[in-house]
């Protein structure tokens, strides 16, 4: 038998998942390049890491989505973070281990992790 508290817990947990599904205009968008080049370079685990990190922190204003090839295949996996009113930030050669730092420093606190961005690779 479920008590009112247990129902509330189910609600909290589930609504996060559903919000992730529905937010068409999340304030912040994380876009992972998931074309063949990206996938071959290991973009899938990166994508999963973002989804998990974002939902663990219950960042309802963030959507994680996928996109095609941006054209710089040698720098894949490429992840772009788009915030309204700000220049977009492009991360290159992202590894799953780097994701929690990007989320913590950039998405939550607003300071892009410069050393992972495209400028450091070009």
């Amino acid at each position, binding site marked *: 038998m479920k008590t009112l508290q247990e129902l509330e817990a189910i609600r909290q947990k589930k*609504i996060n998942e559903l919000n*992730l*599904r*529905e*937010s068409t205009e999340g304030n912040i968008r994380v876009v992972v390049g*998931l074309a063949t080049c990206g996938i071959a370079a290991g973009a899938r685990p990166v994508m999963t890491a973002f989804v998990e990190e974002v939902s663990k922190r219950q960042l309802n204003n963030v959507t*994680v989505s996928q996109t095609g090839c941006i054209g710089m295949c040698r720098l894949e996996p490429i992840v772009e973070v788009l915030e309204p009113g700000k220049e977009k930030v492009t991360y290159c050669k992202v590894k799953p281990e780097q994701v929690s730092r990007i989320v913590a420093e950039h998405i939550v606190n607003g300071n892009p992790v410069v050393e992972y961005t495209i400028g450091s690779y070009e």
Partner: protein
Amino acid sequence: MIYRSHILVCAGTGCTSSNSLQIIDNFNNLLAEKGYEKEVQVIRTGCFGLCAAGPIVVVYPEGVYYSRVTPEDVEEIVNEHIIKGRPVERLIYKEHDADGTSTTLNDSSFYKKQHRIALRNCGRIDPENIDEYIAFDGYKALGKCLTELSRDDIVDILLASGLRGRGGGGFPTGLKWKFAKAPESDVKYVCCNADEGDPGAFMDRSVLEGDPHSVLEAMAIAGYCIGAQQGYIYVRAEYPIAVKRLRIAIDQAREYGLLGDNIMGTGFKFDIDLRLGSGAFVCGEETALLASIEGQRGEPRTRPPFPAVKGLWGKPTLLNNVETYANICQIILNGADWFASMGTEKSKGTKVFALGGKINNTGLVEVPMGTTLREVIYDIGGGIPNGKKFKAAQTGGPSGGCIPAEHLDIPIDYDNLNSIGSMMGSGGMIVMDEDNCMVNIAKFFLEFTVDESCGKCPPCRIGTRRMLEMLTRITEGKGQPGDIEKLEELAKNIKASALCGLGQTAPNPVLSTIRYFRDEYEAHIYEKRCPAGECKALLNFVIDPEKCKGCSLCAKKCPVGAISGEIKSPFTIDTSKCVKCGLCMESCKFKAIEKK
């Protein structure tokens, strides 16, 4: 498990019949094959309401709305959209009027004027997953009732909300609950009318298929309020998907202890069972429905006593319609004032309509009471196909009447519709254009009631049959002067003397078509002519000798050899042989053949 993308596929009856289950299978197989099953989840949902454009597939988080998807399209959606992130343009839902495409469905004019309360979860949650229902405040209203509200509070909230029964009668729901709560009895019942016999209506089916828990929760609230421990849902066996989802929902609710003994630890006990009806229209009538649940013949009886006093097995019983229940939890959560702020003076909230007939967006719409018919038909429904002219809309099905073009701007509510000779009914809305003959429409609905009459009372059993015979005569060109008056008199007597609602309302379609389209009846009777060109017996196909070039194509097409003539001079049709199939008219390149 967390997913980056969700593919929502409509598994409502409309889309299921156009193969959406195959689409779901294809998605699952293909995603598994490509190794995406851990990233992308395929979810079956209830009806989106836009069945005309089905099967419907929506991909989140982008909210891209695909229509008319076939199982073969699945591969392209997966390869392009899911893998490469490029929505498949050619499948994106396009509106009829605008050429600009809208990729998110909430922008389309089909949804813009709608306000979804009863249908709020349809197309949004997975109806077979109780957690998704709970996520959108499911079972919160029941919790509130059991822990914060007294039984009288609930009645007061419903009374103040102004909610009226959505099953057709429009009786105030709060009052009904009050009457059912009043008698002292150790056994009472809560029943749900999911019989939905009105031809062309599928509002209740969609709620049950898309959001079954909303009905279960409201019935449990009703049980607490009136003091009942057992509920029955009377659902027609022709709704297999609804039945299956209800069964799953009941099992899940029992497992969570939201039905059964000691609900949420409050000591309240309530359970629900299904009863399948076999699809007799009269079993939607409340006393016939209760008789049918008891295992008796589905025949109505006289009232009083009303079910609230003496219902199922002689015990006080509350019976409400599916859509009525679907509104209850929202009213409890958001308050009576919230609900009463929508709609007109005497009709509050919203109403779901099943749009059908000659209309572009066949489907389900939920609009605030007081929306005009014009908005429903033109803005939401997308107007009449092929540039034809609107003639009338039938609301209330076989018990209702037609609304002609002159009343297009009337705000839809219970009282307005009654005042123009139609009724709200359960929400079927059938649109007719200039090619529909109103005498024939009246005949269609009367055929239905004659078939469905249970035969217990003579006015309905014999009276409606006599009316049908007269209408048939008229459409065959054998109408006699005085027929209209005879129809009117018979109608008046049947309405006054039939036992139940079926007979009492059966003459309505005839009366309302006579009221607004008397000239069509007169044309049939006195001029032996069908102005809409639908009644075959009154039609003649003729060749205009001015336009006919004598090509002989029509003569070759005619299946009965009724057309003859010399090449290069006008042909003629022998009306005694003609079977009025219309093939000649379709085949003529010079538009020389007319229906008269």
